């Protein structure tokens, strides 16, 4: 099935047998669980919109392996045009769902592996790239969602993997067998983990030779024996268990993260893409991180929704004509488009790697992500400024529906006479959802830490700018001799 639709995707998830825990209990029916379901809807949108004529130009492309039309999320970038379309797809989906749609991490993992496996083979005469391409074809042919799993628990941050008191703090090889390897460890903060068919693991940091047992990359079906998922909580998550819908903010979509534990899990050789080549761990991390820093064009899409919601609440409140409100909305747009600029710039300045895969410009990708660690917070601050305090003091939908007090909410929380109070409540809940509710996980804290905390980008920026050239020209223009 080269391109599933939303329904087929949902059915495919039902065939998985995932071991998922939430609130201390095993979740029997993951797909229909009310807390998880909105996140499933968001991934399903990546399947459904691929079939819409008005989106397919971004949502689909041609497989460089089979020549068939595929969902772009399973593709390997073959040109800078592909990279640019990836950025645009991220913005599009963010703007349609208002949340994290989870599927880009796996795409970024596959693109990074398409290069690193090739480069390892060049140096060591291994066959990782051949294996990887076979795996990729399987993913493309079945239109699978892959969780891109990089982040280890990392234990004591001041210690290398082999120095940790508990070696499971970093994913590692515990046994090598004729038919494969056995691994142990965990991956934290895994976006969309329980909505995925596959999980692709990568090391989390650069390694030294002493850490070679930790230099491991592989893919497994998400329901492989020995894998357990523990769902991350999100603020306001249990609102999804309430009777009404208004207090959820986003009526349709959401995201999720999970802790994924690997309790001595067997990986057959044909799914192993790195096995102790410690000198390539850093490259894989950097290439994955660069792609993922580009992927945050999605935040500009979510920003589109937040800006739209802010304009609406300004109009509902009757404040939209105030010059400072107009100016704040201009500022929100300015910041949001600046986010998009970074993603488009690093894509359009991409280049071809020896494997044939196109990689983004890594300096610009880091600049893009550094902006992402800041601007959504400022956009959110401005949205909260314009929304007013009701954003955090609004009574529940149940009170609004209450025969006793509903009339008071209706009366006192009506602003513009032409706008029903319920609409004002709905738009405030959406702003709450994005700026401090469950979607703030993706819009704010993921913007901060996802694809690496801010300092990780600053290190890369410092490493990649050509400081000598800047100094040379400054010397020349100010008349300082070269040798001083």
């Amino acid at each position: 099935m080269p391109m599933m639709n939303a329904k087929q995707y949902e059915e495919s998830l039902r065939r998985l047998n995932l071991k998922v825990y939430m609130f201390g209990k095993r979740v029997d029916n993951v797909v229909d669980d009310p807390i998880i379901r909105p996140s499933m809807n968001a991934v399903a949108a990546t399947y459904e919109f691929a079939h819409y004529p008005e989106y397919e130009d971004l949502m689909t492309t041609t497989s460089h392996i089979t020549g068939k039309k595929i969902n772009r999320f399973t593709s390997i970038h073959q040109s800078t045009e592909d990279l640019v379309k990836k950025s645009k797809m991220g913005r599009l989906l963010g703007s349609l769902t208002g949340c994290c749609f989870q599927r880009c991490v796996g795409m970024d993992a596959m693109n990074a592996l398409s290069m690193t496996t090739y480069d390892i083979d060049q140096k060591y005469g291994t066959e990782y790239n051949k294996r990887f391409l076979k795996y990729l074809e399987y993913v493309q042919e079945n239109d699978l969602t892959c969780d891109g799993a990089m982040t280890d628990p990392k234990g004591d941050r001041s210690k290398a993997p082999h120095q940790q008191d508990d070696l499971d703090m970093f994913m590692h090889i515990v046994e090598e067998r004729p038919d494969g390897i056995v691994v142990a460890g965990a991956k934290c903060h895994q976006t969309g983990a329980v909505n995925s068919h596959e999980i692709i693991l990568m090391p989390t940091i650069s390694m030294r030779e002493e850490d070679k047992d930790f230099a491991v990359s592989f893919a497994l079906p998400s329901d492989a024996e020995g894998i357990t998922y523990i769902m991350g909580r999100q603020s306001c998550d249990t609102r999804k268990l309430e009777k009404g819908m208004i207090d959820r903010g986003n009526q349709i979509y959401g995201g999720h993260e999970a802790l994924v534990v690997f309790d001595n899990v067997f990986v057959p050789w044909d799914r192993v893409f790195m096995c102790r080549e410690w000198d390539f761990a850093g490259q894989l991390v950097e290439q994955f991180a660069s792609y993922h820093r580009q992927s945050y064009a999605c935040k500009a899409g979510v920003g589109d929704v937040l800006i739209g919601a802010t304009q609406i609440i300004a109009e509902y409140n009757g404040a939209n004509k105030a010059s400072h409100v107009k100016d704040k909305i201009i500022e929100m747009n300015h910041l949001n488009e600046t986010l998009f600029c970074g993603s488009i710039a690093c894509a359009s300045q991409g280049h071809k790697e020896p494997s044939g895969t196109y990689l983004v410009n890594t300096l610009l990708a880091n600049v893009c992500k550094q902006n992402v660690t800041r601007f959504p917070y400022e956009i959110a601050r401005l949205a909260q400024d314009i929304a007013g305090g009701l954003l955090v003091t609004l009574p529940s939908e149940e009170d609004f529906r209450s025969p006793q007090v509903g009339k008071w909410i209706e009366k006192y929380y009506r602003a513009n006479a032409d706008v029903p109070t319920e609409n004002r409540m709905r738009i405030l809940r959406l702003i709450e959802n994005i700026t401090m509710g469950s979607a703030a996980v993706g819009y704010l804290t993921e913007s901060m830490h996802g694809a690496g905390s801010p300092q990780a980008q600053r290190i890369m920026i410092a490493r990649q700018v050509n400081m000598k050239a800047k100094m040379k020209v400054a010397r020349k223009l100010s008349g300082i001799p070269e040798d001083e």
Partner: protein
Amino acid sequence: MSKVLRIGLKYCGGCSPCYDRVGTVNRIKEELGGMIEFVSPEREEAKSVLVISGCKTACADISLFSDRPIRFISSEDDASVWIEEMKRGKQ
């Protein structure tokens, strides 16, 4: 009665369109109903293709039908001009 003209319809992906692309196509269909029929641009019978771009970047992939006459629409105004041309019998 004159023959219905089959025109290939191709959208850009719509990352940040400056107008409602689908709404505009619906307007075209309303105004030119009976005169034209939109079909997939990949179909042979589409002798020309209308590309609906969300903005002037017009980045839709047109490689599959680049041998046929292509008309780009990047705004509501572009669509209005094209509708008038079609009504006047210009193609």
